[in-house]
């Protein structure tokens, strides 16, 4: 494959980067009336094979992910560039195909009160993302940026119209001359509180919005598949001819947000036209998604309720792509409560754009300060409950006759009906209390049910009770000690786990930690493994250096309902991040 970057281009980037670093003693580098800022990250690991945990020998032994962002701003003009070197990336990223190097992000942008235009690479989101979300999550190895153009117009204060047109990034495959797909979209939003004088002063916020997004993907190939696959002696095949595979697939969405003082309501509905693709087994049913969220907060009390239903809404630039969120055009949010607890990480709910219905409820209450129960600083209590199911659907007759949904409408589904399969349930309580200036304690309990078969492709229903404690002791103004302890009790999957981590910090420079995850409840005694980790970090101004050694268990990593697999690993990690 022809390299995307010539040596000359790479040299220019490095010279530019070196120039910036030579000047990094200054907080920002000034060029004329403009300024340059940026950030750099290096995350490298020396891999040590460990057959017990399944950590394979890694070719090259030392791997690293590296990037540099540079941003130039001068009045209304902004230009930016990012270079990524992932040629020999951390093994997690290699396994999802995020491997390569190049100028992955470059743009120029002009903005005034009426107009903003962007040429090059950009990120954008319409509403909650049900119809369109181009975003980046470095931790997950997700980068759905578009290369093209974007226009934002503000004809009146409170009215914003956006248009996007471009080709979506596909890992490091930058030969766009061979791409047969692109995206175009338009979004409009009206903020009434900005249009109608006095409305905001009375505490009202109201916005209406709508978007339309369409992808084009050339269709030249007939799609062949087997019908009656269960009949052993007879092979019957069918074809979806290329001209029956839609080249232009559109999604539209409408949204409404309303707020009055402490009350806020957000809702968005999206619909997608026929989009046969590999994730839905090439069915022609329309897709639908509904997101609803209502919150109320006042001093010491907050309540929220959210609802989501998504049906056949996996929407990608290429119909043959199914891995993680590669080439995803839209985003179906995960509305369940997100946790940072180590032991629950492997049972994080992954949003199911092709079929989920669920709700989340949360209550936050603060027992008042200086009361008997609340203590001097008050005590915060959070209760939450969430539950998600598959959809309640009936396979269409033709699909039953053919033994496959491919090439049919697939199924019909009742809008508010829940399917028989539970995907995820979480009941939790968290209590947080500061005892005095030195001591703070957080206690949490969760009971979760997690459908491993549907969400991870293996196993059955996982039931787990997790108890967590987070105790902080501020020894002096500079020195603090934090203990995090968790216990996950389960008879399913790998059984029970216990975790403890002790962190000592000398503010503002040093952090030291030592921790261990122990799978003490594994049914196989040889698999009762300790996953220990020891780490030290040093911070100077905007630079952070971190060195650690430890083992990572095989599992998943999820951020906002988007997940990727994490392979087992063992080794020494060095990371350097800085911004200037």
């Amino acid at each position, binding site marked *: 494959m022809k390299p995307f970057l010539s040596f000359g281009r790479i040299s220019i980037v490095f010279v530019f980067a070196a120039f910036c670093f030579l000047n990094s003693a200054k907080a920002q580098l000034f060029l004329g009336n403009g300024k340059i800022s940026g950030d750099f990250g290096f995350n490298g690991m020396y891999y040590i094979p460990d057959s017990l945990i399944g950590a394979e020998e890694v070719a090259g032994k030392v791997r690293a992910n590296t990037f540099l962002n540079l941003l130039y701003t001068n009045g209304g003009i902004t230009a930016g560039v990012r270079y990524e070197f992932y040629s020999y990336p951390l093994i997690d990223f290699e396994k999802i195909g995020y491997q390569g190097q190049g100028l992955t992000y470059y743009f120029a942008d002009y903005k005034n009160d009426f107009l903003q235009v962007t040429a090059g690479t950009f990120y954008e989101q319409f509403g909650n993302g049900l119809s369109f979300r181009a975003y980046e999550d470095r931790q997950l190895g997700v980068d759905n940026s578009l290369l093209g153009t974007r226009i934002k117009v503000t004809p009146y204060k409170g009215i914003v119209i956006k248009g996007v047109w471009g080709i979506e990034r596909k890992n490091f495959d930058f030969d766009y001359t*061979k791409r047969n797909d692109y995206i175009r979209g338009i979004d409009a939003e009206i903020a009434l509180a900005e249009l109608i004088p006095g409305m905001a002063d009375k505490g009202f916020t109201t916005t209406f919005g709508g978007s339309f997004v369409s992808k084009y993907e050339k269709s030249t*190939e007939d799609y062949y598949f087997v019908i009656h*696959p269960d009949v*052993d*002696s007879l*092979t019957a095949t069918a074809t979806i001819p290329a001209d029956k595979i839609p080249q232009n697939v559109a999604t539209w969405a409408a949204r409404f947000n309303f707020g009055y003082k402490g009350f806020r309501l957000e809702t968005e509905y999206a619909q997608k*036209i026929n989009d046969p693709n590999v994730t839905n087994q090439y069915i*022609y049913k329309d897709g639908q998604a509904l997101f609803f969220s209502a919150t109320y907060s006042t001093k010491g009390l907050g309540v929220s309720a959210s609802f989501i239903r998504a049906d056949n809404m996996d929407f990608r630039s290429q119909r043959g792509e199914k891995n993680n969120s590669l080439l995803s055009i839209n985003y179906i949010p995960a509305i369940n409560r997100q946790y940072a607890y180590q032991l629950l990480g492997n049972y994080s709910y992954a949003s199911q754009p092709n079929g989920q219905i669920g709700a989340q409820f949360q209550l936050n209450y603060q027992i008042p300060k200086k009361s008997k129960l609340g203590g001097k600083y008050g005590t915060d209590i959070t209760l939450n409950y969430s539950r998600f199911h598959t959809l309640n659907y009936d396979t269409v007759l033709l699909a039953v006759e053919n033994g496959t949904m491919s*090439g049919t409408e697939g199924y019909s589904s009742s809008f508010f009906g829940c399917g028989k399969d539970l995907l995820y349930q979480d009941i939790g309580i968290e209590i947080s209390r500061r005892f005095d200036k030195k001591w703070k304690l957080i206690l949490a309990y969760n009971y979760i049910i997690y459908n491993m078969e549907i969400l991870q492709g293996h196993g059955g229903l996982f039931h787990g009770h997790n108890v967590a404690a987070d105790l902080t002791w501020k020894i002096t103004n500079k020195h603090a000690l934090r203990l995090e302890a968790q216990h996950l009790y389960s008879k399913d999957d790998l059984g029970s786990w216990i975790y403890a981590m002790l962190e000592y910090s000398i503010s503002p420079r040093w952090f030291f930690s030592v921790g261990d995850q122990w799978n003490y409840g594994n049914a196989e005694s040889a698999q009762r493994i300790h996953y220990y980790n020891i780490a030290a970090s040093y911070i100077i101004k905007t630079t952070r250096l971190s060195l650690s050694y430890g083992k990572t268990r095989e599992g998943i990593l999820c951020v906002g309902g988007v997940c990727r697999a994490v392979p087992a690993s063992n080794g020494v990690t060095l990371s350097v991040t800085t911004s200037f």
Partner: protein
Amino acid sequence: MKKSILLIVISAIIYSSCDIIETPYISPNGDVEVDVEFPELNRDSVIRKVLMEEFTGHRCPNCPEGHERLAQLLTTYGDSLVAVCIHAGALANTNIDFPYDFRTEAGTQLYNDFGLDPVPIAIINRKQYNNQWGVELNSWQNAIEAVDRSEIYAGIQLINVFKSNENRLYAYSKTTMLKEYANPVQLSLFLIEDGIVSPQKDGVLVDTFYVHNHILRLGINGTYGSKFTVSGIVEKDSSYTLGYPVDFTGKDWDISKCTIVAILHDPSTREVLQVEARKAIE
């Protein structure tokens, strides 16, 4: 007036950005009953064969060297190496000196999907070698050697029946999984042909009577083939049959020089798990 024009333009853009497809969506290919009997598979005799897809072009001056190298490799590896020559890319275009069009939809799609550079270049078992899909001529043998042949995932049996009254070839396959395999798999059937005489650029000269071998003629069930089950998941020790008709009407293909190539692959990793070839008429 301006607003009306704007609305009409927006409506037109939106309308043209949606392809609403009317039923029926599918064209049944007709049931092909597998009315042939496959013999019992001798599991001990199954070896993992290697697929070599050589991308070439009749206007490519260096490609005869590639064909020569391929012939040497076929002598070295015998029938454990299955070759498919694919004319694709700019050097496969036709012109007045090279009027015969060797290009196929399947070949062009493979060339594009694997992001290949100038020919001659080969993909070995659709697995990356030195972090590249396309392997240059000097490394072909190294890439073949790099295939782990101890991993024998499946055995493929082929039976071809040519019905001259219909002018159709019926290609039947039976795939028996010999190992557990977690990902969905697909089987694609290619029709290739030997002994096609047509001009070929050779250095600065043109060989008018060049003999082209292993030429891809048709992806019988598309480029990437068909799944055996709805999910594509297969089970160890299970066998899966597929049968496809190939209509020779209106084609200049010589049935006596044609071969069916069956490629079992993992669409998620692209790797070829097993490949088998059998002459259309024996």
